[in-house]
C-alpha cells in the first residue's frame, strides 16, 4: 500500500503535461468519465422503469461471485472475475424476481433479502482469501480508480491503461444496444402494459436491461466501487428526467451530467486529497439537488415561485375587484365612465377589514400602487384609479358572466354561484370571455347585478 502511494505520488509529480493536469490525472478522469457514461445510459431506463435499486442490488451482490472466481482461479485476471461477478449479479436479479413471483414476497423486500444475503456470503468467502490480495469488501464499495493508470496495455501502438480498454468496450456495447433497441426500450419504459398488449417481448427487453446493468456494474465497480455505480446509474438519469420531458434529450443530458460529475468530482477530490469515487457521487447528488430545486419546469423553487406569482395575481385581482364592488355599491350603478375623466369614479374605499394584513397583500398592494392601479391614502384608504378600474371591470365581467353560465348550463342554485365564480374569474382567458359574452354580456347576472362593459 505504501509502495503504491509512493508510486502514485511519483506519477502525479512527474507526468505533468502542459498545464496543471498530469497524464495520470487524465487517465483517472477518463476512467471515471467512461464509467459514468456507460452507467448513465443504462440508468435512464432504470429510472423510467422504476427499477433504480436493481443497480444497488446487483452491484452489492457481485461480491460472492468475485470471491468464488478468485478462490477457483487463484488470479485477479479480468475474465474469471467478470464471469464470477456477472453470474452473481444475474443470480441476484433472478432470485429476487423468483421470490417476488413464486413466494409472493413483496418486491423491495425480496430485492433486499437477495442482495444482502449474497453480500454476506461474499464477506464470508472473502475471509478465506489470504490477506495481502487486493480483494476485500471495501474494494467493492470504494473501487480503486486511483490505480487505473498503473496497469497498462498496448493498443494500436499506444500504451493505455488496461481498464480504459475494458470500460470503453462496455460503453460501446451499451450504446449499440440502446441504439438497436431504442424503440423497444422506449415503449417498454413508458407503457409496459401497452407494450405487452401489442405482443412486444417485454420479458426479452427486461432481460437485456438486467444483463446490461449487470455487466456495466461489474466492470465499473472495479474502478469506482459499487456506491458510485449506484450513483451513476440513478442520479444522472433522475436529474435529466427533471430537466426535460423528451426521451432523446434525457439521454444526452444524463451523459453530460454523468461525465461532468466525474470530472468535477475528481478535481475536487484531488484538491481535498480524498476519495475520487466518493466525491464523484457527492457531485452527482449535488447536481440532482440543484436540478430538483431550480429545474426550469419541474424544479421545486420554480413550482413554488410560479404558485406564488399566481397567488399574487389572484390577490391583486381580488383587491381591485373588491374596490370596484365597493365603488359600485356607493355609486349604485354601472361604472362606465371613461378613463379621460378619472375623478368621477375614483372613490375612497375602505379596506380596513379585508385586504390589509399578510405578506401577499402587502406585496400585491405595493405592486398595484407602483403600477398606478390604486392610490393609497392616509388611514389605509385605497382609491381605485382609472387604469385599475379598467382591470377590475374585466375581472367582474368574467365573474358575473361565469355566474350566468353556471346557472344556465350547470343549473346551480343562486347561493352556490359565487364561490366557484370567485375562483374561476382569475382563469378566464380572453377567448373564453369572448365565447361567454355572446350569450351573457347583455343581461344582468343571476343576482341582478349588471355585467360591466368590456
Amino acid at each position: 500500500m505504501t509502495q503504491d502511494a509512493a508510486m502514485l505520488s511519483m506519477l502525479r509529480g512527474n507526468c505533468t503535461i502542459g498545464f496543471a493536469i498530469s497524464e495520470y490525472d487524465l487517465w483517472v478522469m477518463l476512467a471515471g468519465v467512461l464509467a459514468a457514461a456507460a452507467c448513465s445510459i443504462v440508468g435512464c431506463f432504470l429510472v423510467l422503469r422504476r427499477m433504480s435499486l436493481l443497480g444497488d442490488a446487483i452491484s452489492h451482490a457481485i461480491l460472492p461471485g468475485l470471491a468464488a472466481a478468485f478462490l477457483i482461479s487463484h488470479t485477479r485476471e479480468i475474465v474469471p472475475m467478470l464471469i464470477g461477478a456477472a453470474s452473481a449479479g444475474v443470480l441476484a436479479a433472478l432470485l429476487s424476481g423468483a421470490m417476488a413471483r413464486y413466494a409472493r414476497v413483496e418486491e423491495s423486500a425480496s430485492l433486499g433479502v437477495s442482495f444482502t444475503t449474497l453480500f454476506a456470503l461474499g464477506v464470508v468467502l472473502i475471509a478465506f482469501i489470504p490477506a495481502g490480495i487486493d480483494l476485500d469488501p471495501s474494494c467493492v464499495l470504494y473501487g480503486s480508480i486511483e490505480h487505473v493508470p498503473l496497469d497498462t496495455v498496448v493498443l494500436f501502438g499506444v500504451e493505455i491503461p488496461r481498464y480504459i480498454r475494458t470500460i470503453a468496450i462496455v460503453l460501446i456495447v451499451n450504446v449499440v444496444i440502446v441504439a438497436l433497441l431504442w424503440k423497444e426500450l422506449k415503449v417498454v419504459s413508458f407503457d409496459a402494459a401497452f407494450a405487452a398488449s401489442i405482443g412486444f417481448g417485454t420479458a426479452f427487453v427486461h432481460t437485456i436491461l438486467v444483463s446490461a446493468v449487470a455487466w456495466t456494474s461489474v466492470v465499473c465497480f472495479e474502478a469506482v466501487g459499487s456506491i458510485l455505480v449506484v450513483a451513476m446509474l440513478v442520479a444522472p438519469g433522475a436529474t435529466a428526467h427533471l430537466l426535460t420531458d423528451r426521451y432523446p434529450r434525457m439521454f444526452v443530458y444524463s451523459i453530460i451530467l454523468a461525465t461532468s460529475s466525474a470530472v468535477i468530482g475528481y478535481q475536487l477530490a484531488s484538491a481535498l486529497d480524498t476519495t475520487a469515487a466518493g466525491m464523484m457521487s457527492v457531485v452527482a447528488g449535488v447536481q440532482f439537488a440543484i436540478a430538483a430545486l431550480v429545474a426550469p419546469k419541474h424544479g421545486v423553487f420554480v413550482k413554488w415561485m410560479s404558485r406564488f406569482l399566481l397567488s399574487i395575481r389572484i390577490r391583486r385581482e381580488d383587491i381591485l375587484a373588491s374596490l370596484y364592488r365597493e365603488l359600485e355599491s356607493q355609486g349604485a350603478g354601472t361604472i362606465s365612465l371613461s378613463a379621460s375623466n378619472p375623478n368621477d369614479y375614483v372613490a375612497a374605499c375602505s379596506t380596513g377589514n379585508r385586504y390589509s394584513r399578510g405578506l401577499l397583500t402587502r406585496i400585491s398592494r405595493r405592486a398595484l400602487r407602483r403600477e398606478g392601479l390604486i392610490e393609497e391614502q392616509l388611514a389605509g384608504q385605497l382609491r381605485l384609479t382609472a387604469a385599475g378600474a379598467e382591470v377590475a371591470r374585466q375581472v367582474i365581467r368574467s365573474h358575473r358572466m361565469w355566474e350566468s353560465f353556471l346557472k344556465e348550463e350547470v343549473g346551480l342554485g343562486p347561493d352556490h354561484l359565487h364561490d366557484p365564480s370567485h375562483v374561476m374569474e382569475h382563469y378566464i382567458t380572453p377567448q373564453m370571455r369572448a365565447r361567454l359574452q355572446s350569450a351573457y354580456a347583455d343581461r344582468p347576472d343571476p343576482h341582478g347585478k349588471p355585467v360591466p362593459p368590456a
Partner: protein
Amino acid sequence: MNEFIRLVLLQDPNTRVVLAGAGLLGVCAGVLGVFVVLRRRALVGDAIAHAALPGIGASFLIFGERNVVALLAGAFVFGLLGVLCIAAIQMWTRVKEDAALGIVLSSFFGLGLVLSRIAQSTPGGNKAGLDGYIFGKAASMVQSDVLVIALVAVTTLVVVAFFFKELRLVCFDRSFAASIGRPVGMIDFVLLALVCVCVIAGLPAVGVVLTAALLIIPAAGARFWTDRLGYLVFIAGLFGAGAACIGVAMSAALPIPAGSRGWPTGAMIVLAAAAIFMVSMLLAPQRGVLAAVARRVAFKRKMSLEHVLRAAYEVTEDRKPGGFSWSINEIVRHIDGQAGLQRIINRAVRAGLVKKYIHGTRAGQYTLTDDGAIEATRLVRAHRLWEHFLIRHADIAPDHVHRGADELEHILPTEMIRAIELELGSTLPPAPPSPHQVVQGVRLEGNP
C-alpha cells in the same frame, strides 16, 4: 472441540457479551422490520445505514477523538436527514421512491467516504475505527455497546407496544387511518426514527450493508408463517434473535481454516437469518412454496380424475343399462390432450370409483362403480348447470361455454350449484341435458 464446549456453556465472557448484544439487536430489528416491510419500505433501512456514514465522519472531524456517543449522534442526525430527503424528493419532485432512495443512499455514502478519508489523514485518524462502521465488528463488542443496544431495544419495544394499534392502522390502511384523524405522518415519522436508532445501534456490530438485512430478512421470513400482526411481530423478533445467536455462535465455534481471517460475525448473522428465511419460504404451512406446490399438484390430480369420471359418464350417457362399460380409447377420443390417462384411471380404480373387468367378453373394459357414478353425476351436473348459466346470463354461445365450465366444475361450491338450479327453475334430471353436442353422445337440443 474445547472451544465449542466453552461456547455452549457460555463460559467465555466475551462471547456472552457479543451474544447478548447481537440477540437484543436481532429482536429490535426484527420487530421494527415487520412494520417497515409491511409499509413496503424494505430498503429504507439500507438507505438510512448508508446515509448515516457522513455523520460518523463529520463528528470524527469535529470532535477528533473517537467519542462513541458523538459518533452515534452524528450518524443519527444524518440518517434522519437522509430519510427526510427521500420523503422530500418524493413529495415535491416527479422522481419516484426507488430513484430517491438510490440517489440519497449513494451521494450520502459518497460524502461519508470523502469525510472519513479526510478524517483518516488528520493526526489521530484511525482507519480501522471508521472502517469498523462500514463492515461491522460484532466480535469486538464490549459491555457498554451492549448497554446501548439494550436501551435501544427496550425503547423500541415499549414504543411499538404503545403505538401498536396506530402502527397497525398505518400499515394496513393508511388512508383510512388518515380519514379517522390519526396523525399518520407523525406515526410514520416515529417509525422511521425508531428504524434510524436501531440501524445506528447496529452499525458498529454488523456494518452499513448488512444492517438492512437484519431489518428485512427476519420480517420477510416471519411473514410466511402468519397473517396476524401480533404473531408476526413476535415471530420476527424471535427470528432476529435466533439468527443473531446462531450467527455469533457459528462464527465463534466453527474451526478457522488455515489462511483465513476468521469468520466475520456480521455476515454469519445475516447468513443465519437467510437460512431461516429459506426454511420459512419452503416449509411454511400456508404460504410456503412447497405447500403451494403440493396444493397445486393435488388440485391437478383431482382435476384430471374428475375429467375422466365426467368423460365416462358422457360416453355412456345414451346407452341402455348393461352397456355402461367403456374402454380407454373411448375416453381418449372424448378428452383429448389428457396425459397419462392410464395412470389416472388406475388411480380411480384404487379409489373405488371405477371398476375394471378382468374376465369375460368385456375384459379390459371399465365401468363406473356406484360411488363413481354418483360422483360423475355430480360433476356433469355442475358442469352443465354452469354452461346453462353462462348461456343465459353471460350471453356466450353454446359452442363456447364448454371450456369455461371445464375449469370451473371442480371448484363450484354446492351453494352456487343450488342457486343456479333455482335460477333455471324447471325440474331437472339428475344431470341436465348438455346445451351443446357431446362427443359420442346424443345431441340434445338444450335450451332449458
